[in-house]
């Protein structure tokens, strides 16, 4: 069995490595690792819930908009806000 380490995988945001196990021309195992850890799960604790709108945006610089928007939809539910479509 042969092992192939492919790292770094480029043209992406963040860091990625792939390790393959190849047996007679067939890939038997593919381990993909994103080799970066910041611990946002811990950062979010002990914050006022409204901070989520800005903090979660920092998870990803590409889809930050989605994180922020979902956080604010969630707050609307929590606070029972009835916001008209225009304001959303």
């Amino acid at each position, binding site marked *: 069995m042969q092992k192939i380490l492919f*790292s770094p995988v480029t043209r992406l945001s963040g860091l990625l490595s792939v390790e393959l196990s190849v047996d007679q021309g067939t890939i038997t195992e593919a381990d993909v690792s994103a080799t970066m850890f910041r611990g946002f799960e811990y950062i979010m604790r002990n914050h006022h819930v409204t901070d989520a709108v800005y903090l979660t945006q920092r998870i990803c610089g*590409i889809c930050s908009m989605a994180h922020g928007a979902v956080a604010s939809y969630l707050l609307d539910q929590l606070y029972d806000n009835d916001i008209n479509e225009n304001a959303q």
Partner: protein
Amino acid sequence: MEKVDFIKLCQDSAKANNHELSAKLLPSARQYLLEHGLGKLPVIWLETNDSGDNNIAFMNTTYPYLNQVFRDMIDLLYSNTFMAAQGTDALQLLEDTMNHYQGKFTLVVEGAVPAKDGGLYNVIARTKKGPLTALDAVVRLGEAAQYVVAIGTCASFGGASSAAPNVTGSVGISQVLKRQVINVSGCPVNPDWFVGTLAHLLMYGPPEVDELNRPKLFYGATVHRHCQRRSYFDNKEYAKQLGDIECMFSQGCSGPRTGSDCPYRQWINHVSWPVKVNTPCIGCTNRDFPDGSAPFFSPLPQKTTSHKQQPDMGKERP
């Protein structure tokens, strides 16, 4: 264009409404290189603990556009995001570039460096010899570089990656290097701040910096000083809720203690900025961001961290 004129150009854009800085940056850099027989700036760009927001913001550059920056200003020799090479090929390129441009390349780091547990929370690449951590790479490349530029608040001061409880022990890159680091903070950075700093390095070497090692060109005045809602603040007319047109000090605005030129430079091709779209400044260029700005919607005196420094209330307003 000589240095004094360039600095004047950067600061004059406070008054201009046609964003002359960006429009004049590329022709002047091109001209300068030609006259002085200089080449492009060789750059190695490392991504460490961050969210990739700064390279996205950098791609937003207009006048010069991204392709013009690549064509006329910098030689991007290694970048996880932009390069075509990958795997061992990419690592070979990094090694070769470092040896070939020893003492001549500019190291750009995007992201904080996790210092805990031997730096294992950020591995730039896995190799047969073991993991190449961000900590190793930044230290090694940082020592070999001519200039080191921290892009974004994570690289500058730790930023969101080092927010409490900071389980990874992330720090700004100046904490792991014994040399000058130019901090171009912001979460993300405004492309003008970064491209402007590159242009300055290219033509005149390191720019003049403030006490946080940021180019004075862009961080010299507070957001509050030039904010369009400033007259409301002076008249003590505060927004009762988000969406009101008055000053958002009451809604947690960090503008009074945040150095940046957002109100007039603005974002996304100079179109808008937070206060203009009814969201308070969250102080993203600050050394203590995000912890020092939280809770984001509480007025400054009620933020978690008690700010020892009196906020600049704009007394020196011109």
